[in-house]
Each structure stands twice: as structure tokens, then as C-alpha cells.
């Protein structure tokens, strides 16, 4: 008995380490290709977020109105004015180089440090939790555990020409999976703790009177003042208290259900599609400015599969561009990338041209960006539910004894 129990107990700590590590490095379809494409989308999204940043205002921001931030308040107090003048153009130039994929690792570090400093200083003005992923977690995990330069980057092309072995988009080695899973852990933790906060006996979530009714009405007033769409059916939660209580429970269960992202497969798709619908409704009608978190969800979607489908149709159109691109040597591309980064940084500082390009002439803002997300997420949700039902029905039929076996 003793000898049988001994090895089992000694195996426990090993399993405690092995299982999380196995999960952190588990299979993700097209991981290398996804990370390369995600890098490009991430940079464009980050540039879009930077449109609203006016860093020089922070230099003169009244000290007595400032809050103490864990980074800006203690580790970097009162930098000179030049810091605030240069920080956004430097970040913009680094993002352009990261988008192109030149010196990707160095640029990831620069984006992490410069973007982190910018946001840390802004957190002295007011705290914004949604930016933690864009400005800290994503570049941090890409830097320490990931490699988003292996595909769709100038670095990858230079390595291939330098006769090093290339990486295929379908590669799912640990360095491509780790950052995806690490960011997922932070997202799960964020939402799960939000559910816990609400469920605490001291929290006002379940005890206050008509939370969603009052919230909806408050946000209708605010959205009217801001010129944003207002929630239709203002009486909905006021006249139907059961619906209102149901919403409170739904939100808590939904946030706690982020734990199911650990399971993967269809369950992950289900939670992510509901999350996008949840964020889109909040963003459009409730004026909840959680837009910076949108980018995180793209990390969990197989962008490479989408690209491959699009390429099957559009490849002939891009063939001439590709042949021109292939004919340019690497040195010229590096010089071109550096010039583009420099020019974009300068134009960002002295004109509104790059901002106008990124926001499609002002068409895309923190609210309108959710307009296309909502129908896409609803469609995705419908497909996932249909798929789940099909699989359940299929499993039921497979479990049912057939005529032949019963006879």
C-alpha cells in the first residue's frame, strides 16, 4: 500500500507544473501565421487608439489633480517637456516598423516601454483598465515568450534570403502558442475577478435597486449629450424587473464563464462571440469605453485561415504587386521602412494626415468601430450555436442503437 501511494504523491507537484505548461504550449491552429497577421492588425489598432492622445498636455497637468500611479508616480517623476513632446511620435514610428516587421524584437521592446510609460503617466490623470492589454500585456508576452516576426514580416524575408530555415504559417511551436495562451490567462483572470467582485456580499451588484434600469436611463442621457446612439426601449428594465434581475445574473455568469476559455474548441468560440456581442452593445448603447480591449479577441481567432480563404479569391489581383515586391532587394526595403517610420512620426506630430488615414477620414471612432463588430459577432454566435447543436444531435444519433445492432 505504502509503495503504491508514494510515487503517486511524488507525482503531484510534477503534474501541478506539467499540466499548466502543457496547456500554455498546447496546440493552436496556424499559430505562426496568426501571430504574424495579428502583429499587423495590432499595430494599426494601436495607431488608431493613439489618435486621441495629446501627450504634451500631461506636462502642465495640475499636480494636485493627479493620482499616484504605480509606475509613473514612483519610478519616473516629472520628466522634462521634451519627453511629452516626443513620446507619441516615437511610439508611432516604432509601431510602423513593428507593423512592417523590421527589427521586430527590438521594436516590440520599444513599443512596450514607450507605450507603457505613456499610459502609466496618463493613469495619473485617470485610470483606464482596458488599455492594459494593448499597451502592456500583449507586447510583454510577445517579447518574453513569443515570436510574432516569423511570418509576414521583413525580418522573416531577410532570414529566408540569408538561407535560414523559414517558418510556415501552420507552425504551432511553443513560441507561437505561449503569448496567445498567456494573454488568455490575463483575460480570464480579469473577467473572473470582475464576476467575483460582483458576487461579494459587500458589493452593490445584487443589492441595489433596479441597476440596469437606472444604468440604461443614465447612459441614454449621457449618450444624447455626447451625440451617440441612445438605447431604444427605455422602459424595458424599468417595467420588467425579472428581466432586469436576469441581466444581473447573466453578466456575472458570463464573466465567470471566461474560465471555459481554458477548455478551447467550440466552447472558446461560444464565449468569445458572446463577449464581442457584450462589448459591442456596451460600446454602442451604454457608452462603456472599453474599446481598447477589442484587439485582444483577434489574438484568439484564426486570422491565418481567414487570410488563406481571402487569398484563394484575391491572389490574382495581388500578383503584380507581389512580383514588384519580390524584385526589390532587402536593403532597399529596410531603407524604405525606416523612411516611412520617420515620415509617419513627423506627420503625426505636425499634421493630422496619418490620423485621418487610420480613422478612415474620421469615419471610425471609439463608438463606430463597434458597428461592424456587432453583426459579425452575432453571425459568429449563430454559427457556433448551430455547430454545437449539430454536434450534440450527431452525438445523440451516434449513441442511439441502430436497427441492425438491436436486431
Amino acid at each position, binding site marked *: 500500500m505504502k509503495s503504491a501511494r508514494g510515487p503517486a504523491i511524488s507525482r503531484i507537484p510534477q503534474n501541478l507544473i506539467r499540466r499548466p505548461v502543457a496547456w500554455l504550449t498546447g496546440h493552436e491552429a496556424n499559430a505562426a501565421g496568426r501571430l504574424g497577421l495579428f502583429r499587423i492588425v495590432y499595430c494599426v489598432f494601436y495607431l488608431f487608439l493613439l489618435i486621441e492622445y495629446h501627450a504634451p498636455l500631461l506636462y502642465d497637468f495640475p*499636480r494636485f489633480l493627479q493620482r499616484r500611479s504605480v509606475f509613473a508616480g514612483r519610478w519616473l517623476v516629472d520628466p522634462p517637456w521634451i519627453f511629452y513632446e516626443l513620446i507619441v511620435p516615437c511610439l508611432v514610428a516604432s509601431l510602423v516598423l513593428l507593423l512592417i516587421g523590421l527589427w521586430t524584437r527590438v521594436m516590440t521592446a520599444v513599443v512596450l516601454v514607450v507605450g507603457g510609460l505613456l499610459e502609466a503617466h*496618463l493613469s495619473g490623470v485617470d485610470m483606464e483598465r482596458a488599455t492594459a492589454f494593448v499597451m502592456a500585456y500583449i507586447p510583454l508576452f510577445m517579447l*518574453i515568450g513569443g515570436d510574432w516576426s516569423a511570418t509576414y514580416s521583413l525580418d522573416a524575408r531577410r532570414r529566408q534570403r540569408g538561407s535560414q530555415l523559414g517558418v510556415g504559417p501552420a507552425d504551432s511551436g511553443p513560441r507561437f502558442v505561449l503569448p496567445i495562451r498567456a494573454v488568455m490567462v490575463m483575460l480570464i483572470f480579469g473577467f473572473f475577478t470582475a464576476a467575483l467582485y460582483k458576487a461579494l456580499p459587500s458589493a452593490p451588484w445584487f443589492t441595489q435597486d433596479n441597476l440596469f434600469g437606472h444604468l440604461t436611463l443614465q447612459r441614454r*442621457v449621457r449618450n444624447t449629450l455626447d451625440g451617440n446612439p441612445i438605447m431604444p426601449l*427605455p422602459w424595458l428594465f424599468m417595467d420588467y424587473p425579472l428581466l432586469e434581475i436576469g441581466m444581473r445574473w447573466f453578466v456575472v455568469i458570463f464573466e465567470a464563464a471566461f474560465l471555459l476559455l481554458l477548455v478551447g474548441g467550440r466552447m472558446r468560440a461560444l464565449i468569445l462571440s458572446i463577449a464581442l456581442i457584450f462589448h459591442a452593445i456596451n460600446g454602442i448603447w451604454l457608452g462603456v469605453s472599453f474599446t481598447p480591449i477589442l484587439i485582444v479577441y483577434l489574438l484568439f481567432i484564426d486570422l491565418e485561415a481567414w487570410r488563406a480563404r481571402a487569398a484563394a479569391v484575391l491572389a490574382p489581383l495581388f500578383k503584380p504587386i507581389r512580383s514588384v515586391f519580390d524584385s526589390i532587394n532587402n536593403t532597399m526595403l529596410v531603407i524604405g521602412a525606416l523612411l516611412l517610420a520617420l515620415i509617419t512620426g513627423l506627420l503625426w506630430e505636425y499634421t493630422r494626415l496619418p490620423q485621418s488615414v487610420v480613422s478612415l477620414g474620421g469615419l471610425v471612432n471609439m463608438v463606430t468601430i463597434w458597428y461592424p463588430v456587432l453583426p459579425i459577432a452575432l453571425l459568429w454566435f449563430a454559427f457556433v450555436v448551430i455547430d454545437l447543436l449539430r454536434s450534440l444531435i450527431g452525438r445523440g444519433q451516434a449513441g442511439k442503437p441502430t436497427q441492425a445492432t438491436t436486431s
Partner: protein
Amino acid sequence: MSDTTPNKADRFRIRATAVVLVVLLIGSIWKGEGIDHWPLTTFPMYTQVYEYPPETAERLFLVMVLVNGDEIEIDPRRIFPHGRFKAGEAMIEVSFFLVDKPNAREQSKRTLERVAEELLPGREVVAIEGRRRVWDVDPMGNPPLELNRPRIDESLGRFEIGKGASH
């Protein structure tokens, strides 16, 4: 066929990621007194209490007076990004209301001057005015208020760029 077996570099990446994850997760729970923990933060969303909206809604605005007499209105809630609404409004309050703290008031006015430079580049702003508007609200109405018909629309005072405020 891709190789998913961790090599030496991968093992280092795994360890480093695991350590950082643990630090971030523990840091998210830690609450230092009076310190904001960006990016070590959880999401305590919707933990505040929501009341039925009051019968009136109030907003503060900045009016930038150009050298040719034209006026451009700026919503102070758009000065700082991503929902940092309070800071802009607080600066107007301090610039135009706070008479017992002259240093704070001057500092806040300097920031408003910089707002003019940043948000209206190339325009010569000669004076900045604070405005307060109040609307009657019917929360169940469609829309809940008439944006073009505020009940109160008053000046909080103005100051010329580089000079003191006047009331």
C-alpha cells in the same frame, strides 16, 4: 509538419512567461493605498451604485476665442483619451471656480492654454472661456433631452491667454 517539442530557448520562454504571469496575477490582487496599479489591475466593472437620473443634466465646456473673434467650443471630456472624462471638467472647475488657491488656479489655466495649442494647432487663440449648460431631462423620453435647448447656458468667466481670469 511543424516541430512542437520545446527546445532550450523554448524552455526559457516558458519559464519566463510563467514567472511573469504569476507576478501579474499576484500584483492584480495587491491593493496599495492611494496608488493606481496600471497595468497590474483587475476589472471591477459596474461595482458602483446607479440611481435614477436626476431631473437635470449639466455639462461644462471650453470656448476658445480666436484672434478674429470666432469661437470654437471644446468638450473637456474629449481632452484626455478613453473615458478620462473627469480630468478635463476638473480643470475648468479649478480654473474658474477655485478662488482660494491661486497657485492651483494658475497651473490649471496654463494647462488649458496648452489644450488650445494642442487641439487647435495653427489657430491663434486669444482668450479661453468656461461655459456651463444645464438641460431638463426626461429619462424615458426619446430623446431624453433637447440638446439645442439648454435651460441654463452661462459663462463661468474668461481669461486672456497669458493674463489672469476675469468674471
